């Protein structure tokens, strides 16, 4: 009796290359056609920093040493989260034709713009760290070595969250607007331009529930005071990030066929 062929199996494609290709395409397209290129990427955090610094230095500056550094770190980290999630929420709709014409793991469509934004954030840090040292007088410390770990945790948290947002974005056509409103609220509910000490104690506890707040606290302690991140918090955030990525990937994989149905009609 002839051997039966194996049932429909998933083709084993080298998808790592596809992820890299799409990240490179995102980066090329973003900087293409603009004389300023990467400087455009820097313009947004610099403008936000200038406006918030001028508005709040007199008031918040009383409560925070080195308010410029405090604000700059907050803005760069928040900008990454905000920009990455904003592109992720529309990613399935934006790459509709790609999804309907090629078979590949759908999470790549979400993760590639998130990684492209992460690369921009790394470049921003490459500019920010010398500025902290040379302009704002914050000397490099050994604790700065923990910064890549904190950034990786932030990347994983954002990627996991983005996968959920992308599915919601494909399911509901107004999700990008809803997320724009919610992320604006999150900006004010995260200590980006104000310190926790000016918030009432009961509300501080609420704000501390946000993983972003915890990451900001540790990133600032690391860059400004030269302190290593709190290990128990870092471990907790790393576990949360890993869980969110695994759950997000599971959701996208289980949604992959319904996604095409949604994009077709």
């Amino acid at each position, binding site marked *: *009796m*002839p*051997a*039966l*062929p*194996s*049932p*429909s199996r998933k*083709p084993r*494609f*080298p*998808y790592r*290359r*596809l992820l*890299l*290709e*799409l990240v490179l*395409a995102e980066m*090329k*397209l973003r900087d*293409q*056609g603009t004389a300023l290129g990467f400087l455009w990427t820097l313009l947004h955090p610099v403008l936000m920093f200038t406006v918030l610094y001028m508005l709040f230095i007199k008031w918040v500056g009383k409560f925070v040493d080195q308010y410029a550094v405090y604000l700059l770190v907050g803005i760069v980290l928040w900008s990454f989260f905000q920009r990455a999630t904003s592109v992720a929420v529309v990613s399935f709709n934006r*790459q509709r*034709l*790609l*999804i*309907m*014409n*090629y*078979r*590949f793991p759908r999470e790549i469509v979400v993760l590639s713009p998130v990684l492209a934004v992460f690369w921009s954030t790394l470049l921003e840090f490459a500019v920010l760290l010398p500025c902290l040292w040379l302009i704002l007088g914050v000397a490099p410390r050994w604790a700065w070595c923990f910064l890549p770990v904190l950034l990786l945790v932030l990347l994983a948290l954002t990627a996991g969250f983005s996968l959920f947002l992308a599915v919601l974005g494909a*399911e*509901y*056509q*107004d*999700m990008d607007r*809803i997320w724009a409103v919610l992320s604006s609220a999150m900006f004010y509910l995260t200590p980006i331009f104000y310190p926790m000490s000016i918030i009432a104690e009961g509300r501080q506890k609420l704000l501390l529930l946000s993983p972003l707040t915890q990451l900001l606290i540790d990133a600032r302690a690391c860059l400004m005071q030269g302190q290593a991140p709190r290990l128990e918090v870092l471990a907790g955030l790393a576990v949360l990030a890993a869980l969110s990525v695994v759950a997000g990937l599971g959701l996208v994989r289980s949604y992959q*066929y319904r996604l*095409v*149905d*949604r994009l*077709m*009609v």
Partner: protein
Amino acid sequence: MPSAELAIRARNLGKSFWMGTRGERRTVPQMLRRWVTGNSPQRLHWALQNLNFDIQRGEILGVMGPNGAGKSTLLLLLARILAPSEGTLQVFGKTNPFFQLSAGLEHRLTVLDNFSLCSALLGMSRKHFQKKLSEMIAFSGLEEYLYAHYGELSAGFAARLPLATAIHADLDIILVDEMLAVGDHAFQSKCMEVFRGFKKQGKTLVIASHSRDLIQSLSTHALYLDKGRPVYLGDATDMPPAP
């Protein structure tokens, strides 16, 4: 009993979609309204129903039918981009649809960048891509446009890039949907030659077309669909003029 050379098996295959009836957008407020009122502005549309066939390796299936007959839906199911709503479909081997491939490519990147992107989308490793790149470029005839923006190419030239890449992507089952219509006569002839070569290599080809001549000259079997249902399934040469 399926043989070891079986490439595709469909049993009672069907695919349905929920289609809007009131032009409503899928938004959160609409979803909440539907929950409250229990009214759904959608109706179930069967794009394909009750399809049964086996295709062996090296066979060519030609799919015909008027617009909306379900030809593209069948190819998307075979490519495993869509999942069946009913029945079973088994596809043995690496496949990818061979149509509208240019649709997902980046018009603002160069032709060369798009060769690389397209090959990655089709699952080619970098090593395989680099090995095959010169062959792909020669096949496409786009040697003079490698650094032009992809969006600057005419529709016919633009279609050559994904077609040339897919031909070199080492797929087991090739799915073609009216893509040859955009190429000129010389390019169409080149593609037909390659498709006939696939047959000799034991690759399976499923081609959807409105051209009876094309289907009968190329295919071993023909399937005629109408409103999502099979009207004729048998030898391509025996297909009646208007099933």
